[in-house]
């Protein structure tokens, strides 16, 4: 007990030394966060108060959020678990209650949209969810009806309790797909036997008793949900593409459908187009409107009206891209979006009951040049003071962008929801400014005469002075304004490298195929580019082929997009600063790609060479100029690569041959029946290690085993039984295939997170024996002397390194793991741990040191080793993102800056958070709270003191001389 107290005290003492805590006045100074919700599945405007500023969104990321329509910021957000359990099936909104059906009809939740708290949550019976609807009774909405495959249930809106639950008749043959109510005491469940008949069951709202059951012949109908809507006073309207007809059926009366051929309405369907019906029911306690939309082609909509069992065309919209209904008060309007030209669309409102165009309702929507097409339209209509209808519109595009606009086309905000799903990212240095580049360029040329050189130098110095003055003026001007008001206008011109290279360009690749270039200092999106035709299950790999260091050659990034099923890949080459697609045509890749690697060799234009290995083990190079091929031939014998095939448990190493074919060097097969390969991780290419060894307490040096070709292979047992499961770590030399070390963690299972850097591997697993998360660290040392201190060669290392290992308990589970990275590797390392709570913990690597002693000795104290404690401490001061949590953190990207002490960190998941960390504090730059006032006042004080004392001394001397 006493010992643990002492160690506790010791670690507290250490904390004061290493903690990279944030100071309160630094909030928002170097860091920013952007919160996202994901691709919108359902969006509804809060209408119960006229002045409401909320739009509620349920997204495909299982997020339910409220967005402020004035600013576009999230008011609150609820992040459910990923996977089908959290999937939002339906969103209904009534007053200030939002009702959600979650997890394939498993849960029914009601949220208070003002507070963002849960009103109630109900567990529903199992059964796959079909439809949900509000049920009104006596002119007010009181219940929620949930239709499942075999049952229908009615719940009170106020507390979620079930009013009744009824089994649906003949549910094994009939597919129930829709539920309908118009507040007259009946709830209709509409079912279908495909290509046979429609089955309609009416239940009494009061007690769930079946009032009537009707079977209607409909041999042409195969899908009720897609082809039918209810319009008017309970009339089921269906469209059939085979007979080109509309069918109507009065749910209350008829038992047969009435056919209305489209020809009688003088309408034609575009060939191959499935017509779509859209209706609207503004109030659940009343019947839907008798007006509805019929879409006949990709750009052709009609506003129709059902009147006395006859369909009347109110207005024909051609061309029209998207249509939507919106209701405010008693008025319902139809909004129609039509393409104006290639870059803009117009949105116009029409009165729904007459089809008459409303005056002054034109809104122009400008499409992004490299964006996606508009996909959905959400209209927020409101009554103006003169009782006319005004509106705002939210447009959802293919690239998951939400644009909120008001008349006549002012964009109030845009949300790039694609950024909720960042797959991979890179950071690229910003280029030098024009003047800086000019100065640099001056040294290259020699031809000009002396005089012109001098003049040129003077003029460029003048421009520099001017830029500096401008900068000072801006600093002075901004300093007088509060920080929140300072606008950081990021334009292409102002994008230039700062003195410490702390501002970089973040290139983010999202799963939707949209690429973003974000300024790391402010978080402003500088450019965006939507790649069309990206497969849904694509894997992305982003590589920086040429950095900004090779002026005048533009920087160049290459994105490899690979279809996971077929393995076929596409290359997209672009300029990372401006986002423009490069004029270089990338090679087409007819064969599936197995592996890609970026070599350090460059072509004559300073672009690094990218090698792609296809399934025939043939290698192609990009760029593949003569120069490159020649270099490759020279280098071929020293280019090695590995392939991992988890399905066969095979790990193989290859060597490049001069004719760009490959040769198998080694192969390791892990039996698939016993264990499967989870992942293989090498070291990062841009990592520098400053010190070759560690100085021990007795002044001897323990040299690190710094093998750049080392691979860490993580395997997990296929047997999930907690007694027999294990996690294995294999350290393999990627060149020779030599197994350097093999560690097995028994009674453990994944998920495994691993960081491989310098001479250490840190990994986290779940110990099923003790039901806790554990960290384990492996450190490799050559021993007390180096075999070959000048260069490391995998082929010539006869000694197996010493491996030290230690494990620790980590008190919470983790989401992701990464290590800090600095320019020269002098700064001590920290591990950045993303926690499920959204916090990012900066854990000093010192705590994960296998040499931590159990008993403190003089030597270990000399080495500054912390005594071993089984449980890893977590302190909220170590959270680098304080209360700016990153929901569902998925990856952390670290990049070195120009300052050795500073590492740039970007955490991405549902949110994006950017900050800087100083693992060894800011040792190379004045702190940002440096007291300039004090130092200058002291200096001035001393200066004046010397002046005065000088004067006094003179007077004294003079007096003495007189004496």
């Amino acid at each position, binding site marked *: 007990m006493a010992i643990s107290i002492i160690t506790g005290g010791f670690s507290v003492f250490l904390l004061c030394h290493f903690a990279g805590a944030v100071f309160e*006045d630094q909030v928002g100074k170097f860091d920013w966060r952007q919160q996202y919700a994901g691709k919108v599945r359902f969006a509804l405007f809060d209408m119960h108060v006229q002045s409401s500023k909320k739009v509620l969104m349920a997204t495909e990321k299982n997020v339910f959020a409220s967005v402020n329509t004035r600013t576009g910021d999230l008011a609150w957000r*609820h992040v459910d*678990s*990923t996977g089908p359990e959290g999937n939002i099936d339906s969103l209904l909104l009534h007053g200030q209650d939002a009702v959600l059906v979650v*997890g394939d009809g498993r849960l029914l939740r009601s949220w208070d949209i003002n507070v963002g708290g849960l*009103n109630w949550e109900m567990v529903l019976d199992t059964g796959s969810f079909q439809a949900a609807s509000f049920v009104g009774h006596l002119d007010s909405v009181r219940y929620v009806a949930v239709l499942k495959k075999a049952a229908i249930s009615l719940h009170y809106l106020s507390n979620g309790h079930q009013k009744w639950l009824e089994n649906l008749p003949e549910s094994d043959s009939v597919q129930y797909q829709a539920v309908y109510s118009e507040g007259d005491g009946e709830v209709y469940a509409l079912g279908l036997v495909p290509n046979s008949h429609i089955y309609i069951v009416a239940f009494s709202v009061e007690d769930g008793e079946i009032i009537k059951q009707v079977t209607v012949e409909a041999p042409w109908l195969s899908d009720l949900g897609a082809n039918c809507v209810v319009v008017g006073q309970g009339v089921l309207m269906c469209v059939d593409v085979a007979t080109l007809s509309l069918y109507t059926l009065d749910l209350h009366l008829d038992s047969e459908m009435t056919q209305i051929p489209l020809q009688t309405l003088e309408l034609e369907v575009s060939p191959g187009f499935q017509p779509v019906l859209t209706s609207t029911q503004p109030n659940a306690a009343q019947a839907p409107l008798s007006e509805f939309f019929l879409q006949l082609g990709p750009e052709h909509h009609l506003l129709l009206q059902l009147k006395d069992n006859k369909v009347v065309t109110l207005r024909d919209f051609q061309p029209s891209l998207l249509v939507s209904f919106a209701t405010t008060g008693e008025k319902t309007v139809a909004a129609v979006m039509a393409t104006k030209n290639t870059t803009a669309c117009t949105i116009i409102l029409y009165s729904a009951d007459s089809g008459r165009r409303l005056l002054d309702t034109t809104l122009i929507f400008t499409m992004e040049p490299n964006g996606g097409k508009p996909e959905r339209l959400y209209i927020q209509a409101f009554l103006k003071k003169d009782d006319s209808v005004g509106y705002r519109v939210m447009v959802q595009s293919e690239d998951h962008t939400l644009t909120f606009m008001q008349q006549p086309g002012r964009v109030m905000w845009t949300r790039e929801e694609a950024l909720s799903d960042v797959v991979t990212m890179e950071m690229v240095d910003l280029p030098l400014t024009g003047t800086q580049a000019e100065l640099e360029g001056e040294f290259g040329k020699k031809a000009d005469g002396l005089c012109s050189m001098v003049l040129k130098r003077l003029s460029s110095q003048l421009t520099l002075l001017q830029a500096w003055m401008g900068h000072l003026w801006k600093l002075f001007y901004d300093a007088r304004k509060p920080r929140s008001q300072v606008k950081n206008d990021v334009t292409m011109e102002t994008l230039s490298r700062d003195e410490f290279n702390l501002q970089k360009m973040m290139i983010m690749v999202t799963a939707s195929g949209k690429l973003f270039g974000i300024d790391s200092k402010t978080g402003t999106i500088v450019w965006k580019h939507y790649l069309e035709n990206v497969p849904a299950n694509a894997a992305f790999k982003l590589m920086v082929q040429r950095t900004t260091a090779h002026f005048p050659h533009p920087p160049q990034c290459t994105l490899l997009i690979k279809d996971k099923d077929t393995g076929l890949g596409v290359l997209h080459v672009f300029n990372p600063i401006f986002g423009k697609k490069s004029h270089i045509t990338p090679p087409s890749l007819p064969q599936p790609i197995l592996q890609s690697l970026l070599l350090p060799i460059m072509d004559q234009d300073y672009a690094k060479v990218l090698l792609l290995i296809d399934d025939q083990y043939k290698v192609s190079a990009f760029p593949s100029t003569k120069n490159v091929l020649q270099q490759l031939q020279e280098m071929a014998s020293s280019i090695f690569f590995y392939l991992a095939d988890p399905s066969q448990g095979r790990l193989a190493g290859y060597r490049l041959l001069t004719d760009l074919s490959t040769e198998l060097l080694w192969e390791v097969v892990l039996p698939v029946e016993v264990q499967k390969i989870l992942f293989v991780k090498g070291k990062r290419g841009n990592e520098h290690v400053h010190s070759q060894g560690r100085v021990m307490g007795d002044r001897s040096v323990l040299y690190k085993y710094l093998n750049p070709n080392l691979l860490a292979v993580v395997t997990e047992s296929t047997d999930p039984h907690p007694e027999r499961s294990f996690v294995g770590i294999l350290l393999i030399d990627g060149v020779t295939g030599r197994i350097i070390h093999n560690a097995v963690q028994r009674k453990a299972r994944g998920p495994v997170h691993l960081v491989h850097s310098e001479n250490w591997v840190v990994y986290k697993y779940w110990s099923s024996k003790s039901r806790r998360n554990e960290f384990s660290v492996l450190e490799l040392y050559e021993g007390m002397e180096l075999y070959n201190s000048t260069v490391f060669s995998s082929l010539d290392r006869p000694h197996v390194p010493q491996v030290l290992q230690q494990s620790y308990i980590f008190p919470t*589970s983790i989401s992701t793991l990464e290590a800090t990275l600095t320019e020269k590797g002098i700064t001590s390392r920290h591990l950045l741990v993303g926690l499920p709570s959204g916090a990012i913990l900066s854990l000093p690597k010192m705590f994960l040191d296998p040499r931590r002693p159990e008993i403190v000795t003089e030597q270990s104290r000399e080495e500054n080793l912390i005594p071993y404690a089984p449980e890893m401490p977590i302190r909220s001061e170590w*959270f680098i993102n304080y209360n700016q949590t990153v929901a569902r953190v998925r990856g952390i990207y670290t990049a070195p800056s120009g300052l050795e002490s500073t590492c740039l960190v970007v955490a991405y998941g549902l949110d994006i958070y950017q900050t800087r960390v100083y693992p060894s504090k800011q040792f190379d730059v004045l702190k940002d709270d440096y007291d300039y006032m004090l130092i200058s006042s002291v200096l001035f004080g001393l200066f004046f003191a010397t002046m005065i004392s000088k004067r006094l001394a003179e007077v004294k001397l003079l007096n003495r001389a007189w004496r």
Partner: protein
Amino acid sequence: MAKMNELTRVLFYIQAYVVLAWCFTDMETGPSNGLSTQPNGDRFKIEGRAIVPGVRTQDWVSKARVLVEGEEFVGFLRTDGSFAVNDIPPGSYVVEVVTPAYKFDPVRVDITSKGKMRARLVNHIKTSEVIRMPYPLQIRSPGPNIYFTKRETWGWTDFLMNPMVMMMVLPLLIIVLLPKVVNTNDPEMRKEMEQSMNMLNPNPELPDVSEFMTKLFSGGSKGSGKPSGSSSSKGTRPAVKRR
């Protein structure tokens, strides 16, 4: 008094342990198996309530979540601070309420295959130790999360109490005050002082480093170098020593 308290607490734990061991004899092997989810097994509900003393629930519930075993199961808080996480198979779970502003301690909840629940303190080191907590859970926040460290602010007292400043101020005082106390014009006194100065410089014959350096760099011009060298030696010698 403290001892007494401790004793009673220990007694309570022992008692609790005995009671629980009796209640949950079927548990000890159970929970580890329970984690492998049974597709058709019974699912249970973890219920509880989170309380932040002195703060209205509306102010914090919208940002709070209940996480069961990482993010495996997620629950939300009602507007009154209570929560229920549904559809949980039997097993042993760490339940945590997370919200950016307030700290909450995690609780371990064990669910038997029959649906019996118990809550206990999370102890990662002695995993089988049972210190029982109330169920349905009552999770009270110990306070707000502290993310920030205080800046070292500058104050006059810090400045004055700094050892360096003390070291500088005291000799200054001595220099200013000593001549007033001691009469320097007295020849005897002067002699005494000179002697003491010589005592301070123990070996005047020893070649001085700075002298050597000045000789080296001044090169051939020895004549002019000497007086300046000797004058500098007096000034710099203490400085060299200090290094």
